Each structure stands twice: as C-alpha cells, then as structure tokens.
C-alpha cells in the first residue's frame, strides 16, 4: 500500500501534470495550444527531477526546455503557414501507429521490464552518495573529471551558433530576393 506522505502526493501531482500535458499535446489540433501543453508536461518532468533529488537537472529542465526550447517551438509554429487553421488531415495513420507501438515496445523491453520486472540488480540505489551541483562543477573542471568534454562542448556550441547563422541568414536573403 502506498503511504500518502508529502512526496508521494507531490509525485502524483507532477505525474498528472506530465502525462496530462503530453495528452494535451497529442490531442490538440491547434499547434500553438499543443506547445503550451508541452510546457506543462515539461514542467511536470522538472518536478519529478526535484523529487529524484536532481535539482540541477530540474533547473536545466526549466531554463532550457521551458525557457528556450518551448519558445523555439512557438516561433517554429509561427513560421509555419497556417498556424491555427490546420485543414490538412494527416492520413498516414497506420505507419504512425506502427511506429508508436514499436517505440512503446522498446520502452517496455528496454526500461520498464528490467527495472520493475523483479530484477535484483535494480532494487538497490545506484549510489548512496547524493551528488550536489557543487560536485558537478568540480567534476566538470577537474583534470581527472570531465575537463576535456567540457572544453569540447564549447566548440560544439560555437559550431551550433555559426551553423544557425549560416542557415538562417541564407534563408533570410532568399526571402529578400523574392
């Protein structure tokens, strides 16, 4: 029987937010409203991260996913031709259904069955030590930690920045010529 302490109630609130938001995304025909529902779902995931004592991930979730990716989605929706009057009906339902079922099967076989199928390996916590954001900062910078991936990440970000400018500028100039 589940004990209804505070964290359990919080878990159910965030789980409902996550699943309800996801349901809102897939059932809404209005793309813009779908984006707003996506923000609700992502916020629920951020709450779940807090409950899993991963506050840094929760902050990343709110800052990057809700604060930036969702805004990008909003802009992407505005860039598409008819943002509220979606008259085109998506007709290829069977391939999509097959893809969804296959993805769900992969989730069940890969994640849900190994973790909840009574496997002894997953019954114990991965580590007793709770890592804090400070530990992460030290690990990112220290020589025996992740200093090289950390510096490479900046090159990746610079590449992404330049790539975004090159692609968007070209499209912009083509639009000007028309």
């Amino acid at each position: 029987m589940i004990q209804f302490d505070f964290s359990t109630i919080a878990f159910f609130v965030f789980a409902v937010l996550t699943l309800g938001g996801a349901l809102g995304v897939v059932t809404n025909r209005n793309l813009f409203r779908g984006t707003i529902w996506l923000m609700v779902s992502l916020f629920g995931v951020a709450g779940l991260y807090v409950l899993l004592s991963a506050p840094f991930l929760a902050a990343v979730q709110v800052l990057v996913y809700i604060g930036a990716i969702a805004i990008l989605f909003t802009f992407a929706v505005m860039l598409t031709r008819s943002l509220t009057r979606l008259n085109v009906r998506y007709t290829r339902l069977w391939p999509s259904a097959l893809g969804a079922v296959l993805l769900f099967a992969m989730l069940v076989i890969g994640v849900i069955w190994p973790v909840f199928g009574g496997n002894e390996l997953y019954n114990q916590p991965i580590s007793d030590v709770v890592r804090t954001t400070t530990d992460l900062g030290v690990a990112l910078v220290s020589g025996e930690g992740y200093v090289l991936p950390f510096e490479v990440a900046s090159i990746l970000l610079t590449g992404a920045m330049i790539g975004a400018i090159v692609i968007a500028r070209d499209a912009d100039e083509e639009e000007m010529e028309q």
Partner: protein
Amino acid sequence: MTLQAFAPIGVLIIIALIIGVIILMISRVFGPHNPSFRKNAPYESGMKPIGPGTRRMPVKFYLVAVLFIIFDVEVIFFMPWAVAMRDLGVYGLIVMGVFTLILVVGFIYEWKKGALEWE
C-alpha cells in the same frame, strides 16, 4: 538535499497560481459580459479584416530563438562552475576562461555577420 529546501519554490508556484486564478475570476465576476459578433471581431469599429489574421513570421525570429538557446545552454555550463567557483580557485578560472574564449569566437562571428542586428 531534502524536499524542504524546495518549499519556497512550491510556495511561489502556489501564490502565482492563486493570483492568476483570482485575476481571471475578478474580470469574469465583476465585468459586464454581453458579446456580439462585432465585439468579437479582431478590430472592433475598424475595417473589415481582409485575409487571415495570422501571418507567417520572418525567419529572423527563429534565428534569435536559436541563438538564445545556445546562450542558454552556455549559462547551464556556467552554473555548476559558479557554484563550485570558490573551491576551484585560479585553475577553475583558467578552464572557464578557455571555455569562454572559444565561445567568444562564435560571438564575434555572430556580431560581425550582423545576426544580432534587426534591420
């Protein structure tokens, strides 16, 4: 880290929700509500709208959003370093300096290309 540390954020969210609901309820309860076709039109007492009200936005908005995401991810990398900055000392500062220097290259390119300008 216990959940109690997040109590202020929880209180903030609850207060924000309550204020939002109250503001919506105030205008619903106290405001007059008798809509007509004209009042619901996008521009009341104006020209009859021609064509759809929703237009495609220029791609410039998208560029700004993408650049914002990249700077946002940079902030994410700065955050754990800033928390541990006092323990890391000069070495951490140098590592972060290299990280920032590489990013400044992209930033200068962006600036010179005029991606930050809104013509």
